[in-house]
């Protein structure tokens, strides 16, 4: 293998993995505060289509990025209202968000499929994704607000008794996660593709969800995990190209299988589970009780 080929492959891995980093780091913060949002795929698609449509209509990258982010704020805000104020089941609400987002994005983007645009340079976003992981790692471990987020996710009743605003904290982390998912979608439709196509995120939302568990809720591990997952996907294509006879589907299921194995490993030991997973994950907070 020549140096050029290796650099070429690394380049593709960098470009294709970035949406996983965005969506994953957002979900990580949301889950650290004790909320499981299964709506990533829907959020990504709506973020992708909003950004794309705005760019086609206005031709302005700033507006398109802005509206894409706004779409994430609105949708995740609805999710937050349902699970936090109305205390709905997080699993069902997240699935509803995904189903709704798949439908909404397809409807909005109907007229724009196949419209050509000038894509943005992906390298800005790649740099931002690394900075984000650094920022989130620092935020969660070194700042007071980060500690509050973690306290709320570990035991919301204690956090509430200590005087922290559980609902407000979770609103902010859910909306942060939503915005990150929209950014992931924006990156896919504006930088990576650049085009719009129904269902173009192709299950990356679910991989990002798996990634958070795979990384045992730790930001730096999430970055490494994202590049492992992304690298496996690219490696599969290259192996096929040079004629290796292993079926591609087995590479594609690797991230999911690896996540199950990690999940079994951390949950089989009570202490290990406590050290990795936020204890209040997926448990609704009821103030009145």
């Amino acid at each position, binding site marked *: 293998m020549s140096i050029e080929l290796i650099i070429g492959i690394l380049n593709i891995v960098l470009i294709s993995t970035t949406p996983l980093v965005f969506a994953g780091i957002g979900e990580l913060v949301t889950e650290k505060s004790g909320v*499981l949002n299964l709506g990533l795929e*829907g959020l990504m698609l709506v973020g992708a289509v909003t950004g794309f449509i705005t760019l086609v209509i206005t031709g302005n990258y700033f507006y398109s990025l802005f509206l894409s982010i706004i779409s994430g704020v609105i949708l995740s805000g609805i999710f937050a209202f349902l699970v936090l104020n109305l205390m709905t089941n997080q699993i069902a*609400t997240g699935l509803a968000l995904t189903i*709704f987002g798949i*439908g909404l994005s397809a409807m909005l983007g109907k007229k724009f499929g196949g419209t050509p645009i000038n894509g943005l340079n992906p390298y800005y976003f790649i740099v931002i994704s690394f900075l984000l992981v650094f920022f989130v790692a620092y935020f969660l471990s070194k700042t007071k607000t980060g500690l509050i987020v973690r306290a709320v996710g570990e035991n919301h009743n204690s956090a509430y008794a200590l005087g922290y605003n559980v609902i407000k904290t979770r609103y902010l982390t859910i909306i942060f996660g939503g915005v990150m998912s929209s950014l992931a979608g924006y990156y896919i439709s504006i930088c990576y593709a650049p085009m719009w196509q129904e269902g173009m995120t192709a299950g990356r939302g679910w991989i990002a*969800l798996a990634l958070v568990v795979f990384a045992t809720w730790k930001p730096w591990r999430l970055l490494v995990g994202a590049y492992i997952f992304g690298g496996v996907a690219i490696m599969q294509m290259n192996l096929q190209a040079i004629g290796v006879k292993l079926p591609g589907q087995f590479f594609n299921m690797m991230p999911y299988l690896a996540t199950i194995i990690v*999940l079994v490993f951390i949950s089989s030991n009570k202490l290990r589970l406590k050290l990795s997973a936020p204890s209040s994950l997926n448990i609704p907070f009821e103030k009145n009780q």
Partner: protein
Amino acid sequence: MIRVQLREDYSNLIFYLSPLVAVALTLFFGSFIFLILDLSPIESFKIFFISPISNSYGISELFVKATPLAIIALGLSYCFKNNIYNIGAEGQLTMGAIFGGGIGLLFNDSTSVFLLPLMILFGVIGGAFWATIPAILKTKFNTNEILTSLMLTYVALFILDYFVVGPWKDPAGYGLPKSMPFPDAGRLPVLIDGLRVHIGVYFALIICLITYIIYNKTLFGFKLKVTGLSSKASQYAGFKYKNLIFYTFIISGACAGLAGLFEVSGPIGLLYRDISPNYGFTAIIVAFLGRLNPFGIILSSLLIALTYLGAEDAQLFLKIPSAVGFVFQGLVLFFLLGTDFLNKYKVFIK
């Protein structure tokens, strides 16, 4: 100022009324969506909800779509009643189709009357097998069943993909990723000649009745109810929670596997990549919308099946993507979950 207070009097009326409120709210917001798209809401609703079932073909299609939804949702209701979140029905459905369909392909020159029952049996086994994995992981290693059952769905979809592009690809299929058709003996009998509605409808009704009896007349149903309401009370009563997890997972997996086999041996007739338009996930909506009540699930499966048909007609006549059906499904679940709040809390406005 809005104040909420936990309800002490549990209201059955609100419990069963809230799905209707959710549907009404969905229609209300849906009309705005049509307005934004520059379509007349009344005309659109007619195309979406009435014209699809205005002829015998449409009604048959309604049952074709409602059958898998009802069967899967009935199975899922066991899990959800027990507060176990199996969200991997789509994967279990796929496994049922692989196992049962595999039998159909293995004996592809068979004319035996036993072929179809054997396929059904293997479909059920396939679905149940796939559901046993999260059940074992949950009971042995305390692993979160939500995440494992979801991950296994994607594993199952890739396994199906492997078979239809690899070993089971039809040699006479022009290289398309699909298997050869099942023999006639492996096809599900239709109820009316020329229409696609098949005997799966009877299975759905039988499963509904059995479920009703189990929930209301058996100790097992009682255990599920108690565990769902309070896992502590169930522990004090000495119910074996781990066994309940196992049984509910196996029942829901078996139902999903059955639905998957019915899809491939009924309307589809062979194996290919997209055997299910998200039935496994949509059935979760059906189960919630039917309030985990067996008869409620039958009704909600018909309603959600209508959103599939309406979406197809909307694509044809209104030129909007069929994904609009997903918008309605998502909305109805949002509103249902939201209105459940009124079931638990009283709201005062001062």
